[in-house]
């Protein structure tokens, strides 16, 4: 009898909270439901009325099957008693028709119902539904769509100065004890943060392009041998350094803890864009009767690979080296020999400017939050500039290739070298201006040979 069933206190409290009267709970318990099942139904939003209807249908032996359902059952090989049993357990005709049309066999249906009819009741935990995360969060799309910044609401948008978790727990989730550490080593915001990284991530996603089909490859016509060799050498050089940047960033990604997912996501787009640059410049080198050229000496590469902390890597790669690469892209775009190269350099330029935006905004964040690191950053740049100069001295191939490309032929290399020097000057002016914005005055400390290039 329903009125003789005892309702556990916890279930009674939940039932009151969810609007299930005691008599209904007792009736359900009497029908064979466990307290845990009932608590689960209540948490899933089953109302008292729905529960009453279900119990009534079950008590009445279920609804009478329609002729259409019986015909479908016959076609599917389900005996009539099985159909009646399913209906008596509360299944809807439409659902049964669906199962039949999906090929569910009578045997499978019997097994399923046996589980649901008290034979082997699934014991649900459902405690995960009560964790104290910030609930009722409703992010709204902006003009830019549903962006990372748009979902940074309440607790989910709080980026702590120090992230205390070693695991891959997402920011805003609830930690559980005993999870193994994932090997992260960066737990301080100032080590990686940039106030622009979420926006830069969205920008990178929206402004992507596809080398295989977007570049007008068929616009490339045979070039004189010296020009083809020059562009192929430039492509070799750029492929190398973009691959190196991808490799280096790829190594830093797993060091950054999950609390700073905006940075991790942005760096992922940077790696992708480095890969795209490797792809597109390799394709250009191999698309017009030329091939790859000679490798670079790699002094500058090594200074990036050897960086021992993230900010060092960013200062040398994503501010110093990328300022040079951006200047190279801008000038190659200016002297492109066909619409394909125009497209390639014009788009690579945009990507590189985003990498720089992250680098510069990160340095500014460090300077604002850890002014004591100012001298440290200057020393990283000392090293980076020294290695960059070493590349300049030891890499005539790249310098000459740019000069021939800018000059238009080997005969015009002198004019090309003049443009090359303008490119180096522009790189240095912009490099210093970017650092100045990040509150780093590098004018007096610039390596003497670079200063000479700047003042030439």
């Amino acid at each position, binding site marked *: 009898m329903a009125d003789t069933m005892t309702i556990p206190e916890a279930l009674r409290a939940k039932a009151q909270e969810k609007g299930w009267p005691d008599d209904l709970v007792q009736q359900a318990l009497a029908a064979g439901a466990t307290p845990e099942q009932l608590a689960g139904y209540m948490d899933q939003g089953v109302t008292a009325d729905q529960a009453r209807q279900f119990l009534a249908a079950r008590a009445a032996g279920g609804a009478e099957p329609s002729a259409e359902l019986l015909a479908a059952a016959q076609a599917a090989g389900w005996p009539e008693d099985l159909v009646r049993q399913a209906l008596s357990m509360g299944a809807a005709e439409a659902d049964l028709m669906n199962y039949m049309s999906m090929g569910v066999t009578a045997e499978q249906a019997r097994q399923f119902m046996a589980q649901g009819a008290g034979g082997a009741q699934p014991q649900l935990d459902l405690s995960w539904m009560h964790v104290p995360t910030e609930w009722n969060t409703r992010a709204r799309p902006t*003009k830019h769509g549903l962006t990372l910044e748009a979902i940074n609401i309440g607790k989910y948008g709080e980026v702590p100065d120090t992230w205390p978790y070693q695991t891959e727990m997402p920011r805003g989730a609830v930690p559980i004890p005993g999870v193994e550490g994932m090997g992260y080593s960066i737990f301080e915001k100032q080590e990686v943060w940039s106030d622009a990284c979420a926006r830069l991530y969205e920008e990178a996603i929206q402004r992507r392009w596809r080398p295989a089909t977007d570049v007008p490859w068929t616009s490339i016509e045979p070039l004189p041998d010296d020009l083809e060799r020059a562009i192929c050498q430039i492509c070799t050089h750029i492929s190398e350094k973009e691959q190196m940047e991808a490799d280096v960033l790829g190594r830093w990604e797993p060091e950054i803890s999950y609390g700073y997912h905006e940075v991790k996501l942005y760096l992922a787009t940077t790696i992708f864009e480095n890969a795209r640059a490797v792809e597109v410049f390799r394709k250009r080198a191999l698309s017009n009767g030329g091939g790859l050229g000679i490798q670079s000496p790699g002094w500058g590469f090594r200074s990036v690979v050897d960086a021992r902390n993230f900010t060092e890597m960013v200062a040398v790669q994503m501010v110093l080296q990328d300022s040079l690469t*951006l200047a190279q892209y801008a000038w190659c775009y*200016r002297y492109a020999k066909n619409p394909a190269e125009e497209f390639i350099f*014009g788009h690579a330029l*945009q990507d590189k*400017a985003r990498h720089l935006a992250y680098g510069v905004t990160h340095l500014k964040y460090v300077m604002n939050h850890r002014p004591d690191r100012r001298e440290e950053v200057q020393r990283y740049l000392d090293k980076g500039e020294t290695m960059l100069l070493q590349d300049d001295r030891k890499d005539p191939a790249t310098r000459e290739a740019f000069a021939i490309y800018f000059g238009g032929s080997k005969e015009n290399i002198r004019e090309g070298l003049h443009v090359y020097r303008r490119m180096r000057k522009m790189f240095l002016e912009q490099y210093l*201006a970017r650092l100045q914005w990040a509150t780093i005055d590098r004018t007096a400390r610039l390596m003497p040979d670079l200063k000479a290039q700047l003042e030439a």
Partner: protein
Amino acid sequence: MPVFPSVEWFEAIKNIVNNDPAFRQLGTIDATVGVKVGGKIYELTFEAFECTGVREASENDLRDMDFWLEQPYDSWKDMLENIKKNGKADLSHTLNTIDLSTPEGFAKSHDGYRRDAFYRFNQSLQDFFNASSKIETQFAAPEAVAASA
């Protein structure tokens, strides 16, 4: 026929790009860009996938813009005539080329970081000016307009 430079002229270009799916495909552009033609200054606001505003601005407003594009009226006219003739800027008349060829600078800013928006959104900005090939432009030097007013 809109007169260059004028708010009406920039509005006409704005309407073209905002209705052009190809402009949207280039991706989001978020920048406040000045265009300085002689003594006249115009402010173009880009937000998400479109140009959201055009207005006449003043010298003081330049400080608040990400960057501004500045060259003499005759150079603007030369650039726009080239765009009209080719359907888009040829390599000698792209914004990038003009920037590299102008010793005193073409894309200017008071801010070493915001100036890089010129590079980040370069192809969208080029597309914006290339869209002028779709309208008939009447040219009038700002000084001449001011003198006749």
